[in-house]
């Protein structure tokens, strides 16, 4: 069925009903800016209802979910560790989405960055010097960018829908990593457990404040990436090209910009940043290549990108908020005994409400069509 149209059957009646979104002539700038906050508020309200429904005290639950993780220094570090990949990936995605390229496969690019970046320390563990880490980071970016280039190539060469190809490549990447961690790259002395050898200290990203917690240098990369991309989008010709092609493709062509070139640019930038996030996670947070290296950062980063209004500076804030849902999920599991899948529920609600608010800011709903009384035999 076409979206917005429903067939229904009720009390022997069958019919078609149509719900249309009608563009508002003018949209409110105030509500546009407020939309992430409204969405967050709605998420809290519905989260409270959710906790109440499963028999947990709602306020206490929300407290342990959203406040408790911020009360101690080490857990703030945990928050930063979780926010690092989210921000890095989402910054790259903002370039994609602003230019109207729908990269849903950052998770796969993240994984390939993790794999490519850890090849040197795993295969040549003796190579330990000042060049080790920079080389790993560069390899990670190349790995992510190369994996991101696949949907870009398919889109420009065969006009394939990048949403489908990039998403499907995630599963390929996940299974490939699983195979590597159990096969080719498995630690021979690991008693048969999956996972590579532990990275040497020369191959691990240093912690920024070792006495307080485990947050590593990755957050610095993330903030630098956000500021650079923010400046690029706002004040350079390349950023103008991104925004122009995204908003008016025909005017973009008239300006002499290449649409296929932009597809590659967007996918290579977002792939490289997702790859950098992947190797930073392996090198800074995990310390070895495992059969899974991401609790879905590449997907959650999509929420971060939209919650941050596709603005890299907004994305820094949004990344911290979404990181909190991961931590809260873990905290809630311990203190409330609820499944940590609740974190996914919160993330889903947040994205739903952000997109819902944005839609209602730009459109209003109109119901058209009606029930058609019918004694229809065929269906």
């Amino acid at each position: 069925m076409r979206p917005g149209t429903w067939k229904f059957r009720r009390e022997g009646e069958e019919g078609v009903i149509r719900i249309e979104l009608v563009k508002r002539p003018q949209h409110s700038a105030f509500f546009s800016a407020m939309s992430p906050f409204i969405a967050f508020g709605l998420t809290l309200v519905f989260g409270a209802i959710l906790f109440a429904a499963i028999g947990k005290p709602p306020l206490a639950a929300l407290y342990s979910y959203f406040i408790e993780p911020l009360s101690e220094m080490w857990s703030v570090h945990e928050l930063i560790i979780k926010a690092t990949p989210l921000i890095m990936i989402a910054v790259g995605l903002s370039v994609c989405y602003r230019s109207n390229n729908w990269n849903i496969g950052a998770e796969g690019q993240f994984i390939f960055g993790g794999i490519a970046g850890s090849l040197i320390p795993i295969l040549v563990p003796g190579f330990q010097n000042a060049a080790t880490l920079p080389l790993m980071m560069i390899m990670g970016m190349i790995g992510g960018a190369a994996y991101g280039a696949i949907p870009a190539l398919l889109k420009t060469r065969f006009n394939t829908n990048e949403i489908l190809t990039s998403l499907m490549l995630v599963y390929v990447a996940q299974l490939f990593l699983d195979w590597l961690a159990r096969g080719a790259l498995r630690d021979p002395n690991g008693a048969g457990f999956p996972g590579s050898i532990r990275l040497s200290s020369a191959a691990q990203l240093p912690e920024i404040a070792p006495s307080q917690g485990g947050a590593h240098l990755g957050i610095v990369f993330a903030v630098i990436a956000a500021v650079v991309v923010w400046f690029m989008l706002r004040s350079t010709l390349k950023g103008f090209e991104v925004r122009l092609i995204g908003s008016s493709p025909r005017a973009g062509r008239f300006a002499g910009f290449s649409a296929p070139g932009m597809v590659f640019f967007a996918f290579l930038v977002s792939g490289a940043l997702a790859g950098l996030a992947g190797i930073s996670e392996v090198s800074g947070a995990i310390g070895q290549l495992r059969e899974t290296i991401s609790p879905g950062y590449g997907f959650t980063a999509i929420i971060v990108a939209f919650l941050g209004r596709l603005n890299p500076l907004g994305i820094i804030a949004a990344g911290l908020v979404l990181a909190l849902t991961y931590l809260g999920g873990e905290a809630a599991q311990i203190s409330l005994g609820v499944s940590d899948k609740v974190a996914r529920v919160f993330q889903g609600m947040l994205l739903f409400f952000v997109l819902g608010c944005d839609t209602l800011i730009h459109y209003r709903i109109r119901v058209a069509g009606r029930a058609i009384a019918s004694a229809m035999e065929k269906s």
Partner: protein
Amino acid sequence: MTDATATTAASGTLLRVAGITKVFGTLKANDAVDLDVAPGEIHALLGENGAGKSTLVKMLFGSLQPDAGTIFWKEEPVAVANPMQARALGIGMVFQHFSLFDALTTAENIALSLDEATALSTIAERAKALGDAYGLPLDPNAVVGDLSVGERQRIEIIRCLLQKPELIILDEPTSVLTPQEAEKLFVTLDQLRGEGKSILYISHRLEEVQRICDRATVLRHGKVVAHCTPANETPASLASMMVGADVAAVQRTGAGSTGEPLLEIVDLVRHAASPFAVPLSGVSLTVRAGEVIGIAGVAGNGQGELFEALSGEVLQTTPGQVRLRGKDSGRLGISQRRRAGAAFVPEERLGHGAAPGMKLSENLLLSRHRTDGKAFLGPLGVIRSGAIARSTKRIVSDMDVRKSAEDPEAAALSGGNLQKFIIGRELDRKPAIMVVNQPTWGVDAGAAAHIRQALIELARSGSAVLVISQDLDELFEISDSIAVMHNGHLSAPVPIADATYEKIGLLMGGAEPGHAARDMEVQA
């Protein structure tokens, strides 16, 4: 056809429109329009794009309300508040752009348009019966997404006929049909006329209007310029009514000199990129320094395709087909052609010539980032906003662009003011070659005069100017010679001294002997 006219004249009018006026802002889209349609008559509503045809029928169908004037239905004054009321009166409409859901079946689509709830099976039966009766066979259970354009149009027509209308409004019905499908449609229309139904037929295809319409009303700039009987007219006379034959007194700033050729189009060929595109076949033209050459033609005869080919948005197959300042440029992209001294103004302002959601200063950068990179861009492509703001200000004051804010978004400007800005953006570069498509489309008279003057002055200062326009008055006012585009062919340019409306109108109808000979060669 004369019989039909004679009988209807006796039986009074079905629909009469008296003094209908509709104003949008400063634009009079309909200015005291009179029109009457007799029972059993196919009445053509002729006019160029923007002449006010759509506005008029939207008021007849209740989608718009007139500011003045009266609609008489069977000699009774009526107010048509909405389309539902129009249908209740007996007015049906088939839109140019179909409003069908691809994922639903034919019968379900028809059900959605009916005002009263009816069983789907009943609808399917009635639709099928009607279709068979009118030679519009359709399968009620077919999913619309699988149907051809012609079949979809059948659904729209059946959907309209199910309401038992007495007057059917058809908006450019053949623009989406193949010649064979159009033939079938004409048979259906003939049959409907035979049953005493009236049809208001909107088109700018003169041949078919002559063939099937009993009478015609011609609109131009929102006014009725003529009521006529198409059978008594020629395509050329109809064309000149549509585009206007009133020659404005023109003060020229000296005759066009014949300098060196700056823009040469040599046997330019372009195959149709889509089923509705017009292929260009062997277009040749030379524009010299100091002259303005106009390209006339009825809309949709390949002007848009020619513009894209010249601008470099679409490349040529061989470099020699387009030459800029003596250099083969057919394989160069739009930025390189700009750097070779050319400037382009497309027909569509929002979304093509300018990005609606971007500021004027950003829209300045849109076409100037390669030609003025030194002035507007710093190291690493950082935009020099100060330099751009100064240039924007200069263009705004040179072209007298009226705006409400310091640096508003392009969409916030009126059409005429945005067009002045877009033209000014290119003139500011002092281009050696200027190609403009529809320079004054929908622009008020004052702004249009300003733009035309600027184009003439550019040519007199030694540039080559090519103006594609459907407004013959405009072309006669500014061109040194006029060539005519018809069905992808371009005629030889006619020097302005030899050009008459009749001659150009004849060429617009495709009646040039040279064309006929060429067509025969192609077929042979």
